[in-house]
Each structure stands twice: as C-alpha cells, then as structure tokens.
C-alpha cells in the first residue's frame, strides 16, 4: 500500500529538477530537444504534444468503443441463452487479458493497411471538416489508427463493467414493463439503460485510464512526431507512455529525468481518472 505513495514520491524526486527548470511549460510546451548534451540549459523539453496525443487517442478509443460495449453487454445479459452467456463472459475475460503487444503487432500488420484505405476514403469525402483534412497526404500510423486499436482493447473492459451493472437492474421493474405490454427494447430503454448509466460512466473511465496509459500498442501504431496534431487521420502524434518507451533507450541523464517527470504527469492523470471511476462504480453498486 506504501507502493502508490512511493511511486509518486520517487518519480517526483527524480523529475523535480525538470519541473524546477521548466515549470508549467513542461506540460504545455510541445518541443523536445535536448540541445547540447553537455549543457543542460540548452534543452527545451515539453510534453504538451504527447499529452494531447494521449488524450485524443483515448477519446477516439472511448467514442468508438462505448456504443459497441453497451450493445455487447445488453446482448450478453438479455438476449442470449444462459449457456452461451457463460461462454461469452469467459471469452470477454480472455480478450481483456490479451497482452497489449499482441494487440499492437496485430494492429500494425492487419489494421494498419485497412485503416489507411478507410482514412483515404474519409479524407476524400469529408476532407472539408478540419479534423479529417490531411494536407500532407501521409496517412498510415495516425491517431485514428491508434485510437481505434485502443478502442478494441478497452471494449472488453467497458463491456464487463456495464454487464455487471445491467445484471443488477431491478428484475421486477423489467417484468413490470413486459407485463404492461412493452417490448424487450422498451424495457431495456425504460429500466436498464437509465439504471446502468452511472455504472457505464465508471466503466468507461476505467477504459479511459487504460487507454491513456497504454504503451506498446500505441508505440507500434502511432508515428512519434512532436506537434499538437488535430488532424486525426494524418500520420503524426504520440502519447506520453510511448514517448517514455521510445526515448528511454538513448536518453541522456538529464532527458531521463524529464522522462521521469513525464511519467509522474501520466501517473497523476491516470490516478485521477481511476479514482473518479472507482468512486462512480462503487456508488452505482451501492444503489442496489
């Protein structure tokens, strides 16, 4: 239990110098230049672009995965026979435990060419919307691809939380809705979905936390470029976690400290998201 505090403490201790040197611009700046390796004062380090990349890929992931997760949870809980339900729950657990490196290698080999084609089509027809515009004409390892892959990774997480909450929806109200002549969808919409809303929000935030901190899958599917990239189809971006993994190998001592500071920021952000998620999920459990 001391571990949590220790993690924060040590990262703060290591990264302190960076915060002292750069202050708030470490978070807002989007340049990463160690300058002269001998003289640390020439370095300009900022994780703004990476932080933005983390957030935008995670948002894409959540936007894509939530509708599918809700549909899957409803299907498992209310539509399929019991024997199939137990199988599906096992499969869900299994997919949730798939290593991210396996997702990453699949995303790189299978999803990348597909998404490249889709991106071209989207740009062709919807290019007039700023975020879909790709002036460079280089698609490929874009935030959209990374977000899509993260979305696939967090579907099982959100689904299992949503399913658990839906299964606690008051049975008598559902039966009452049916007895009044409502259809199955009518009962789901009137009883189950409102009941499970806060649980769904909590589950989504858990998924968001996972998507924010994901390293390897993003490393493999997102081109690390230090710029704030709104154009989600263009091949440029990065996130804090993949920044750490990329720069770690050849980092100078000073840069290493900056990576520690970046890790601390990531740690605090995910901790915040997870605290929120835990509180919301626990609350929605207590209603029952």
């Amino acid at each position, binding site marked *: *239990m001391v*571990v*949590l505090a*220790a*993690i924060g403490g*040590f*990262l703060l201790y*290591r990264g302190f110098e960076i915060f002292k040197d750069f202050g708030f611009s470490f978070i807002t700046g989007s340049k990463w230049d160690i300058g002269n390796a001998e003289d640390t004062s020439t370095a300009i380090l900022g994780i703004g672009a990476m932080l933005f990349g983390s957030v935008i890929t995670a948002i894409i992931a959540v936007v894509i995965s939530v509708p*599918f*997760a809700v*549909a*899957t949870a409803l*299907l498992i809980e209310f*539509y399929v026979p019991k024997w199939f339900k137990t199988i599906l729950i*096992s*499969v869900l657990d*299994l*997919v949730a*435990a*798939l*290593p*991210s*490196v*396996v997702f990453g*290698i*699949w995303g*790189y*080999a*299978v*999803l990348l060419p*597909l998404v490249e084609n889709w991106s071209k*089509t989207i740009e062709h027809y919807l290019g007039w919307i700023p975020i879909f515009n790709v002036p460079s004409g280089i698609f490929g390892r874009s935030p959209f691809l990374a977000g899509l892959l993260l979305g*696939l990774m967090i*579907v099982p997480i959100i689904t299992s939380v949503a399913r658990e909450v839906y299964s606690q929806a008051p049975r008598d109200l559902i039966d009452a809705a*049916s007895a009044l002549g*409502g*259809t*199955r*969808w*009518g009962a*789901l919409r009137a009883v189950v979905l409102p009941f499970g809303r806060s649980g769904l929000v909590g589950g989504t935030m*858990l998924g968001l*936390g996972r998507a*924010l*901190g994901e*390293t*390897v899958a993003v490393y493999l599917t997102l081109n690390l470029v230090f710029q704030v990239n709104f154009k989600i189809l263009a091949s440029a971006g990065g996130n804090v*976690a993949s920044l*750490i*993994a990329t720069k*770690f190998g050849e980092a100078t001592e000073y840069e290493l400290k900056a990576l*520690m500071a970046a*890790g601390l920021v*990531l*740690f605090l952000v*995910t901790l915040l*998201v*997870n605290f929120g*998620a*835990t509180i919301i999920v626990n609350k929605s459990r207590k209603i029952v």
Partner: protein
Amino acid sequence: MSVVIETMPPVPTQPWRNSKAQGMRNFLAIVLALICGGVINRVTGLSGFLGLFVGTAFLFPVFVAFANINRGANVVVDRIASAVIAVAFIAVTIPWLSIFITVFRKGSEAFHSSYLTDDMRITPSGDDLQYGGIAHAIVGTMLMVLVATVISVPFGIIAAIYIVEVKGRFASLIRFLVQAMSGVPSIVAGLFVYSTVVTFFGGFSAWAGAIALSILMLPTVARTSEEVLKLVSVDLRTSSSALGATQARTVFTIVIPTVASGLITAAVLGVARVVGETAPLILTSSYFVATSRNLNEPIASLPIYIFSSLGLGDQNATARAWGGAMVLLGLVFFLFLLTRLFSSRIKRK
C-alpha cells in the same frame, strides 16, 4: 330443458412469440440483407469480407423493420434495436477472431521442431527460420513471473484478508487504494522500478523486472482474493468462533483451506495479467539473447522478444515476432483454462 353452455378453457397464447410466418419473414430479411450486401460488395468500392459485412450490417436492420412492419411501431423499433445490437456484437467479435487467426497463421510459419528449445545465442534475428528459437524468452518470462508471484501473492492475500476478515479501520481505504493501483499504467510502474531498483543496484536485472511485474500483479491478486474470501459462509466463521477459536486461527485453519483453490485462481489470474506486459520490462529487465538463469543480469522475456524482433524490420525477424506472439497467446489461453478449472471446482464445493 336445460341449456348446456359450453365453456371452453381459454387457449394459452404467447403473443410475444414469433409466429412461424414471422420467423420466415425474419429469416428472409437476413437472406435479403446478405444478398444486397453481396451485390453492393461486387458493384461498389465496399470490397472484401469487411465490405460484405458492412453492407449487410447496415441493410439488415432496415429489412428487419420491413419484415415486421405490420406489427405496430413499438415492435418495429424493438426489432430494429435487436438487429442493431446483434450487428454491433458481431462487429466486435470480428477483430477478436482476426487476432486469433492472424497470430496462429503467421506464428506457425516461424515454428519448427526445436523452436521451443533453442535460443538466439548464436543466431542473428534475420537468419533462416529453422535456426534459433525462443527458449531463452520462455525461461526468462517464467523466472520473472515466478519471482513476481512469490512476492505479490502473499501481499495480495494479506490485503484481502485484512479487508474481508479483519475489517480494520483502514479496510475501505486499502480497498480503494488497491482499486486505484490496478489502474497504474504499466510503464509508470516500470519507471518507478527503474528509478529505484535499477539505479541503486547498478543496471538492468531480472530482479527489477520481477519487482515491476509484482507491482502490476498485486491489485489483481488482492481483488480476486477479496471476492473469493467473501464467498465463505458466515456460518462457518461463527461456528469456528463458537468453538473458541481465535480469529487468526479461524482464518488460517478454516477460511483459507476452504477457498484454497479460489486463491490459486487469484494467483493464476494475476500471472495472466502480467505475463504479456512489455512496457515495464523494457525499462527493467532489458533483453538478452541467450538462455540465462542469473537473476542479477538482464534477461530475455517473451514480450520483449516480440517487441525487439518487430523493431528490426527484417522479414525473418518479423516472422519470429509472430512466433513469439503465438506462444504468448497460447500461454495466456492455457492460464485461462487453468482458472476455469479451479473456479469450477469452487462452485462444486
């Protein structure tokens, strides 16, 4: 003269059931959607299997709506909702299936008779696929996971016992912390261990990797153990107390033996959670090409093997990465079967 009034018992009807004709119409809707999807697939740019699926997926709810149009607005909406839910579910399973199929198809290319027993000590990654193997990575992963298990399982179970059995003052706080800890990004755990263990003890080592893994494993073990301990009936505990046993004695001689297989499940789930962790190992155990049992040195592991082989860009190296992914997937699959086995044993009790 008496009038015989014939009263027939009401015939039970099940209005919510599909009539046979309705079943036919629904079936027809699927077939029609498939056919139209196929036509679109041939004629327009929506090509390939995915194009077929997308075309069909959008048409299916529409056809289902038409198939039920004589049954009123509510039923139509209900049917559309069911169709959309079914289509969304299938859309979710396609990538899952694709992952399994791709990994096994591409992974089997790298497989050869001594793949599991050779290491990469004398084989460059770009060498022909019949040379080299992943023995070093398997041994490394096993060693680190073993050490991580030894570290985290006792702590996890103690935390669970504190929450469920002792119910001390900090129980809810610890529970909250454990839940929050499960959301710590794996790379942050890696950075932490790097900044402590690696820098203090001079260099990458299997120990550091194992410690990073144990940090990630702890919350899974603690939460699963907690769920399992809650299953023990209150009767069992109170009767133990009634016989004069202390709480510690109750826990160690009654509660834990009762749920032993559940606690093993918790440990296995924890292992399944960390066996494929890549990011923290980049920062802690690094990589090594030969089979090593020395915990003070850098050591190979399956995820890093996949990761570093992939980074080389060489065709044979990439094939090796897929081979590693297949073994890793097989390992996770095996661990899951184990947990199912144990948890079904709990239920029988």
